[in-house]
């Protein structure tokens, strides 16, 4: 299994629980083929893993190994507002591959960058005026002319910034999404969504602006946005009030008026001080088919049908046992955690993270959910993941974890699912876990 480059032989038991803040993974994303996996961390670094070519035995898929590491963003300072700008990578999105090179977008709170990842495995040799190290030759030693030829060398991965899209956002960028047209992408902050052209860095179009004239009237912010996977004119954005708005860019230049709004009326029985916080949508994802939307709020994941606005078609409880603990979760700030959610390649399974290094998968056909754990102690390479359970009453089985013994510092916020196979990448603080389904490696 691919993990970050820690040697398992060293016993740093006293250091094990100490995690450098800068190493905490903040985003995970597969590219369109699934051969490359990119992670961003709080220190502004991006690590790209590449899948090895499949072994001779077809049912053992290749492992992911580090392909390239580079510093994407540096800490910055806004002198006008006297504000530090964090270098934490909020999102990474791959562009569809068009030639031998790979392109990805990475963003922190304020600036988006386009990176070109290319390989070099040969170099020209045999120059007339320079020797192999590049020093100028003594002309008197040159007796004949030669034509330089390309010779194979060790593989080198070069990552170069190709575009920097700066100064487009006043507030913190929370999402980026590449359009299916292959030319544009959107970036969303708390109050505005901008559309950029990949080749133009000094201009962007503002397509959504929900900033009120008087900031005291502010009631909701944008929490996530995504383009439709097939229709280049449609995008969706979620709000802190739990609503989803589908916008059509053909309707007008400024899409403040939504084409559709998806919201579920609040259940008055569950009203509490924290109802507004837990209804805030932390992530929204279109299904691969483009027909459904997946949203994550604090306690549930919901599947919405684009054709039905009045409510979700499916709701899954991720950790309902936390509903009675909302006050203490508010005190320790856990209630503000933003969990991501993902679809599998056939849109039949959805997955999201939870606490205590647990993550949950829900089978949409059966409606059943399973809890799995991403924890080094219990995950040896090639070991089978066993399901876990949180004890909430009834018969207590061995291995059940009580609600009060959940570790809220071990949270699984970021994850990705391979676009074609049953391979998942889970980020648990500073560790990356990659799990493969050996029983059903390919999706039916």
């Amino acid at each position, binding site marked *: 299994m691919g993990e970050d480059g820690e040697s398992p032989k060293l016993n740093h038991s006293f250091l094990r629980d100490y995690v450098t803040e800068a190493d905490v993974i903040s985003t995970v994303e597969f590219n369109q083929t699934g051969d490359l996996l990119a992670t961003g961390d709080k220190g502004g670094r991006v690590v790209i893993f590449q899948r090895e070519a499949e072994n001779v035995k077809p049912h053992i898929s290749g492992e992911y190994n580090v392909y390239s590491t580079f510093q994407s963003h540096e800490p910055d300072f806004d002198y006008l*507002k006297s*504000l530090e700008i964090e270098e934490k990578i909020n999102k990474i999105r791959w562009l569809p591959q068009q030639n031998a090179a790979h392109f990805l977008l990475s963003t922190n*709170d304020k600036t988006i960058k386009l990176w070109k990842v290319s390989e070099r495995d040969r170099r020209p040799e045999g120059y007339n005026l320079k020797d192999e190290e590049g020093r100028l030759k003594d002309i008197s030693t040159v007796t004949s002319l030669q034509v330089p030829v390309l010779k194979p060398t060790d593989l080198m991965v070069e990552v170069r910034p190709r575009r920097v899209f700066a100064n487009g956002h006043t507030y913190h960028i929370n999402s980026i999404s590449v359009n299916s047209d292959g030319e544009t992408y959107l970036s969303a902050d708390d109050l505005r969504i901008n559309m950029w052209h990949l080749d133009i860095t000094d201009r962007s179009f503002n397509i959504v602006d929900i900033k009120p004239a008087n*900031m005291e009237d*502010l009631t*909701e912010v944008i929490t996530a946005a995504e383009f439709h996977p097939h229709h280049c004119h449609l995008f969706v954005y979620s709000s802190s009030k739990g609503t989803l708005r589908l916008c059509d860019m053909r309707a007008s230049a400024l899409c403040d008026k939504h084409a559709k709004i998806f919201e579920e009326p609040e259940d008055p029985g569950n009203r509490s001080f924290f109802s*507004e*916080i837990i209804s805030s949508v932390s992530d929204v994802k279109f299904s691969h088919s483009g027909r459904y939307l997946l949203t994550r709020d604090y306690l549930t994941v919901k599947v919405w049908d684009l054709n039905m606005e009045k409510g979700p078609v499916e709701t899954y409880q991720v950790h309902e046992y936390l509903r009675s603990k909302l006050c203490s979760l508010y*005190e320790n700030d856990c209630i*503000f955690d933003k969990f991501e959610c993902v679809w599998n390649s056939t849109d039949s399974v959805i997955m999201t993270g939870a606490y205590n290094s647990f993550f949950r998968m829900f089978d949409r056909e059966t409606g059943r959910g399973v809890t799995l754990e991403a924890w080094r102690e219990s995950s040896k390479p090639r070991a089978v993941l066993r399901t876990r359970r949180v004890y909430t009453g009834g018969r207590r089985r061995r291995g059940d974890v009580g609600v009060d013994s959940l570790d809220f510092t071990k949270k699984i916020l970021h994850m990705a699912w391979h676009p074609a196979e049953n391979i998942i990448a889970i980020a648990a603080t500073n560790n990356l876990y990659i799990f493969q389904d050996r029983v059903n490696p390919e999706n039916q």
Partner: protein
Amino acid sequence: MEYKVEAHRIMSISLGKIYNSRVQRGGIKLHKNLLVSLVLRSARQVYLSDYYSGVCLNTQHVEAKEWELMDSNQEKPLTPAPEESLSPSTDCNQNPVVPEDPEVQHTSQAVEDSTDLHSVYSKHQAEEESSSEDSTTDVSLTSSPVTCESQCEAKGAEVSSSDCEADANPATVTEGNSQQPPKAHSCSNRKRTAEKTASNDSPVKRTKVTSSNSSEEEAEEMDTGNVSNLITIFGSSFSGLLTKESSEPEAETEDSDSGSGQICCDQMLKNLNPWSTAIVAF
């Protein structure tokens, strides 16, 4: 009453979070601060509404007993009552007797629904000066419903008149003699209002300090809307109420036993630790 403590605690925690967010690296996070301010607002609403409903709860028991006693009483002319209740401050001058609390219930509901809390405080201040003694002897339900109605009108509150009218019927049966107790009654209620809002004001005062700082810095990024609403509502009468706090405890302890339990809790609440932590936070 636990709700009040809880709301209190949540309010101080929220204010602490807002303060801490300003020193966090990366600048103020608009989303998180918006959510915190929503929680702060909800907690404040609960705190305010719970105060009155808590008072009502305590008084309802006594009210039932009193109605049994008063069953024999006949109707009294109701007409004088409205005129007197329209000028409650002057009535307080006459005889600040604090009767039982069905009136409190009505007036408290009126106040609860009233958005014009300024008028409450100004009335309180006027009465505070005029009345210094509160003694409860008679229980009078005489003009309580009528007083309630007029007070409702006076405050322009959205009180459902059904509240007043429903109680009008039993009260007319059980009218007592004096018309002054209801007014003093309303005085005492306003004192409770003031005392409670005085304790509310302490976080307001602190948020006022911080919000003015924050508005200087990042007006765009900091949502001070809810906090400033708090300030506008309580700010002007805060200092006045503070000076009267010392006189209030004595007055309150002499109140009828129906409200005393509540009042003691209120006093305790002022000394609760959450407030000191709120002070430390700022």
